[in-house]
């Protein structure tokens, strides 16, 4: 588990060294590629060996590239008949012991919700990429939006917990993709990668880490021997559930119904209550471990911009310019959206005069921020919903109004 990366000085360089920045890095490890390709590189680094999907703009390059790369390393790529089947296929493949992924955009993400709930209930590790585009419905395929934040949280029915990560640049896309696979294995849960069209299609530099530089969590398999009773849903003392490759050494049942430690359906009130607690607690109790964020110029900031994905790029751009003029403006960049890092956000914003949430929707993360800070009336929304990337001037205009300086 990587620590949060805090780069809160004016010399913030986002992990990229200025000048001679390629020194000491193998030429083959430096790429100039799209964010979608960076996601594929991250998935391969994490050990993905099964992908099922149905191509959709703006996520298509993920499927396209994996259709080439997975067979080369002995993995499987299947283009399914639709998004529902794709989601079901990765669930099945994960159960048999593979690291799995699918990729889509809003309309396809809607279709995947039913099976996503099944993966939550049956506790099946999988990674779902949603490269967000304008919505609702088929919306605006080739343009940017961040309107699926709440869909990631509550798109499937019933109480449940979920993990959703995001990133604003290609190095981080790579790292959160690796993280997504790790968290999926650790907590036996679906993990959603919420990217957006700008990050997905933009090209920039990616330096692929050497093998071993980033930690990889492999499948935790049961030590129960063949022929001995295996309880697929009996947590260990640390709460983790060792798996057994389906169809191999142990026979067991998997269902979307409430189930006992054998995996067989049960409507025993105690079993139901305990399972639901387990499904929620395994993630909500570990918010601090799952939380990922970056600080940019945040130290002593009077005005804090909270942002994520491509809109964070504009927020950082703006904050950098303001700091150079001596204004105390900083950015708290969220890299994990769900479970929402309430405590961290409250603490970071405690001394801010105003908190401005910068996003490309009608305030989906803003509502979460309002719900967790001490003074919700100091939270504002800087947004754009015309499917164009919010720009630094858009944010600056709102900041000046809040400061009482006019536009």
């Amino acid at each position, binding site marked *: 588990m990587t620590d949060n990366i805090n780069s809160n000085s004016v010399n*913030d*360089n*986002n992990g*990229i060294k*200025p*000048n*001679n*920045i*390629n*020194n000491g890095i193998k*030429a083959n490890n*430096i790429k*100039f590629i799209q964010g979608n390709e960076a996601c594929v590189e991250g998935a391969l680094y994490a050990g993905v060996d099964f992908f099922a999907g149905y191509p959709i*703009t*703006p996520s298509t390059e993920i499927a396209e590239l994996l259709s080439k790369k997975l067979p080369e390393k002995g993995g499987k790529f299947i283009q399914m008949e639709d998004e529902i089947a794709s989601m079901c296929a990765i669930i099945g493949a994960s159960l048999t012991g593979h690291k799995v992924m699918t990729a889509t955009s809003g309309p396809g993400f809607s279709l995947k919700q039913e099976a996503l709930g099944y993966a939550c209930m049956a506790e099946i590790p999988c990674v779902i990429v949603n490269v967000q585009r304008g919505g609702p419905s088929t919306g605006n395929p*080739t*343009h940017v939006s961040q309107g699926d934040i709440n869909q990631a949280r509550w798109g499937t029915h019933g109480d449940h917990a979920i993990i959703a990560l995001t990133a604003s640049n290609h190095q981080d896309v790579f790292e959160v993709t690796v993280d997504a696979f790790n968290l999926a294995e650790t907590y036996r849960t679906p993990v959603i990668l919420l990217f957006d069209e*700008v990050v997905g*299609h*933009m*090209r*920039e*530099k990616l330096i692929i880490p050497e093998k071993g530089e980033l930690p990889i969590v492999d499948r935790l398999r049961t030590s129960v021997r063949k022929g001995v009773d295996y309880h697929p849903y009996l947590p260990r003392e640390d709460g983790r559930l060792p798996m057994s490759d389906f169809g191999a050494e142990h026979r067991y049942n998997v269902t979307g119904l409430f189930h006992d430690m054998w995996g067989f359906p049960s409507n025993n009130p105690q079993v139901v209550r305990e399972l639901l607690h387990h499904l929620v607690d395994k993630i909500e109790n570990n918010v601090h471990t799952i939380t990922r964020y970056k600080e940019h110029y945040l130290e002593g900031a009077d005005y804090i911009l909270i942002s994520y994905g491509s809109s964070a*790029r*504009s927020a*950082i*751009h703006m904050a*950098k310019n303001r700091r150079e003029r001596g204004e105390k403006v900083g950015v708290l960049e969220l890299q994990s959206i769900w479970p929402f890092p309430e405590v961290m956000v409250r603490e970071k914003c405690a001394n801010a005069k105003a908190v401005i949430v910068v996003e490309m929707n009608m305030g989906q993360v803003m509502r979460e921020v309002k719900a967790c800070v001490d003074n919700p009336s100091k939270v504002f929304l800087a947004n754009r919903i015309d499917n164009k*990337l919010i*720009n*630094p001037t858009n944010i600056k205009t709102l900041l000046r109004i809040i400061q009482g300086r006019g536009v």
Partner: protein
Amino acid sequence: MKRTRFVFSGSGGQGVITAGIILAEAAVIHEGMNATQTQSYGAAARGGSTRSDVIISNQPIYYPEVNQANILVCLTQEAYINYSSTIRPGGLVLTDSRFVKTTKKVDARQIEVPMYDMVMEKIKKPIVFNICMLGALLGITEFVRPTSLMKVIKATVPKDFIELNQNAFELGMELGALYNE
């Protein structure tokens, strides 16, 4: 190199997006700089106006779109009409003299180069028009080393087309050198 913002504009099929990618990739892979490249995506593969934004800098680049370009390349009249007013004061506008008639008075250096006509006369293949344009651009100012750009072209285009592209690139360099200050 301080931050330089490029806009490559033209119509679909002219290769302006590819040109932007090649330039930015040369800066990143072979010059140790940072670069971003974005483009306006539409549904059409050919025809219609296209635009590719490239930022090159030795500092981190956050907001990746270009509002005011230092360097604007227009390969159609429509692109010129749309974007020439957004050039940064003191910037450079490079146009193709066959496709663009410069009309506006802009606060920038305007250079008209007969890139398309020369490509058709000397190389006879319109597909390398964009590479000739990159050559002209580097002939005017060496934003990246020509050798860096050729390395990317060699790694990008099929083997049988390398010579063709190299010729177009060198032709462009010669044309651009006439305006090198």
